[in-house]
């Protein structure tokens, strides 16, 4: 049976505390995906950075036959790790997923598939919540600063006219959880390795829009993203310069940021 979704998760096996319990993020992320997507033919490709302990890689591969690890031994470059996983993937769709995420309800991946299988859609993002239930991601906004719509508001914030609770076109979505057709990924050359840390997802979404695709936010697909709310992104001048050199006028013309932001 052909693989419908390849879940690509870059990781170095980082541990942290969630709901008072210590966990290896990637292990719990994979467990949660396996537990909530059994109705879909999928494979999980872990791109294991050189710092990942072999025991964690072994544990991951033992979780399910559909899980496999690909080694990435070069310097950190998020885009390169995602590209490596995508190059090894066999599915018709790629789900790019951060290792510090957790899916808790069935149906989220099918909702994302339904959204991305509409002609002309290049990528779909999910509603991502911090551990405390507030919004980490409800679509990108590029109108002024490059950032997240409604960041830090309560997770069920409806927005004006319930806009944040509707499937809607957005300027872009985060690579922390992004579903994109493999053929589209191939068409635009994947993620740019010129942006190893920040804005690679912004660049990917701009490439999609440049190629004529729309990007959609699906709020009914909900996952947790345990990124720290106070995370310092460490954006570097060259990252800002590159993204502006490529997309400044198009990003300022973001037509999708709601007026209430």
């Amino acid at each position, binding site marked *: 049976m052909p693989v419908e979704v390849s879940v690509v998760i870059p990781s170095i096996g980082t541990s942290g505390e969630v709901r008072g319990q210590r966990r290896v993020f990637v292990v719990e992320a994979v467990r949660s995906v396996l537990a909530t997507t059994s109705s879909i033919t999928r494979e999980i490709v872990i791109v294991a950075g050189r710092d990942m302990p072999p025991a964690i890689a072994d544990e991951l591969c033992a979780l399910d036959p559909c899980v496999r690890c690909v080694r990435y031994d070069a310097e950190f470059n998020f885009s390169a790790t995602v590209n490596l996983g995508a190059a090894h993937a066999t599915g018709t769709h790629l789900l790019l997923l951060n290792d510090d995420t957790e899916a808790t309800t069935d149906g989220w991946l099918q909702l994302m598939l339904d959204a991305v299988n509409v002609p002309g859609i290049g990528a779909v993002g999910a509603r991502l919540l911090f551990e405390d239930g507030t919004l980490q991601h409800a679509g990108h906004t590029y109108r002024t600063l490059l950032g997240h719509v409604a960041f830090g508001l309560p997770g069920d914030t409806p927005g004006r006219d319930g806009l944040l609770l509707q499937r809607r076109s957005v300027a872009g979505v985060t690579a922390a959880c992004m579903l994109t057709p493999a053929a589209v990924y*191939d068409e635009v050359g994947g993620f*740019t390795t010129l942006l190893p840390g920040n804005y690679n997802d912004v660049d990917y979404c701009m490439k999609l829009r440049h190629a004529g695709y729309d990007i959609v936010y699906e709020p009914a697909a909900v996952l947790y993203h345990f990124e720290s709310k106070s995370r310092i992104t460490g954006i570097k001048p060259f990252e800002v310069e590159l993204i502006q*050199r490529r*997309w400044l006028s198009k990003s300022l013309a973001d037509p999708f940021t709601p007026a209430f932001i």
Partner: protein
Amino acid sequence: MSEGVDEKLARWAQRDAAIGLDAELNETRVALTARDDEIVDLRARNERLAQNVSQLMTERDALARQIDALKAQPRWQQISRRVVSAGVRISRKGS
């Protein structure tokens, strides 16, 4: 023959570079057009300002000529004008 991982990554890198170059070209064209528009706007404003300066220079010259003319009036004309004015004031008080 199916494409290997390294070949695929190399092809993606080339494709990304081509898209990036095209995007930068577009952005540079947008910036160039913005500069052209700004130059046209500034030239129009510059022309209006030059017209304003020209008008003010004409008015200024007229005012300067008026000052010169006033300064050139004979002294007795100024005195007689004062005498006449004083006479008018006295006759008003008397009536």
